[in-house]
């Protein structure tokens, strides 16, 4: 069995996080938002987003303060999944945390609090 032979350009593009992917790390990374909307407004707006054609999330599950959305299209790493969690600071002030494609991470800590 002969392994694939790499040329210099193959090697250059082999490196993980080839430069431009890092730019999209901003997209890949999790996001935390603050909002002065109520929890019900937040959830209904997320559902609105989920139903927008551009995002194709046919499966939406709601439970307590979390919303899970599962995409329709199978990507390279499986289906696109988003997990949104809403933390209440006051009834009119919430932090929304959005995670992609994961098993829920253990760290619930360190979300940004707006003074």
């Amino acid at each position, binding site marked *: 069995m002969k392994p694939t*032979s*790499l*040329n*210099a*350009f*193959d*090697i*250059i*593009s082999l*490196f993980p996080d*080839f*430069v*431009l*992917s*890092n*730019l*999209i*790390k*901003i*997209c*890949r*990374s*999790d*996001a*935390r*938002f*603050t*909002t*002065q*909307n109520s929890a019900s407004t*937040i959830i209904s*707006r*997320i559902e*609105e*987003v989920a139903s*927008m054609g*551009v*995002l194709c999330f046919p499966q939406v599950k709601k439970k307590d303060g979390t919303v899970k959305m599962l995409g329709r299209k199978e*990507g*390279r790493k499986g289906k*696109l999944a988003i997990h949104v969690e809403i933390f209440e600071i006051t009834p009119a002030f919430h932090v*929304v945390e*959005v995670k*992609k494609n994961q098993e829920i991470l253990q760290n619930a800590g*360190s979300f*940004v609090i*707006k003074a």
Partner: protein
Amino acid sequence: MGCFSSKVARQHQFPGYEDPVFLASQTAFTVSEVQALFEMFKTISSTVVDDGLISKEEFQLALFENRKKEDLLANRIFDLFDLKQRGVIDFEDFVKAMNVFHPNASQEDKLTFSFKLYDLDGSGYIERQEVKQMLIALLRESDMKLADETIEIILDKTFSEADANQDGKIDKSEWQSFVGRNPSLLKIMTLPYLRYIYIYILNLIIDIRIYTHLKDRRGVLE
């Protein structure tokens, strides 16, 4: 959205701002995706100086979370994003450059961009010395150690394959043929994660500020 006065207001704050409907018509992005790109652009362009433009420093920060880090390819990419050659990237530049990495962008555009990317000094040729520079720079970053001799062998092999007229450099048409025989070389010109720009659409719908992971890491609280 799209009314004249708000566009003018936007352009004052963000030089080079163009209507998302217009930019969507010029690129493979949908209007929502261009709006999402604008959110992303706003985040990147405000990190050092809030002037609505992405400077070299802000670009490096976005890529590496470290403004001091110099990188051959990152520098070259910045130059290529800087369509108007003014040392800064405006929103229109940003969208047009990101468009090349869209899965639906033309192979021709991807080919042209990749050629210019590797042509570090913009001479119109990918020279052996340039390829060697890139290899060495990337190897230095990684755990891979290659003897100088090995690097020369790799370069010999690459150039014997790609440099049809054996003049020590690869011109655009040689690059085109070479890529034609090795289509995987254009893989880097498509960003699979572009679909994740939806995150910025969420912001628009919920109407809130974005605190990104990146900002947290730099300890920016507001």
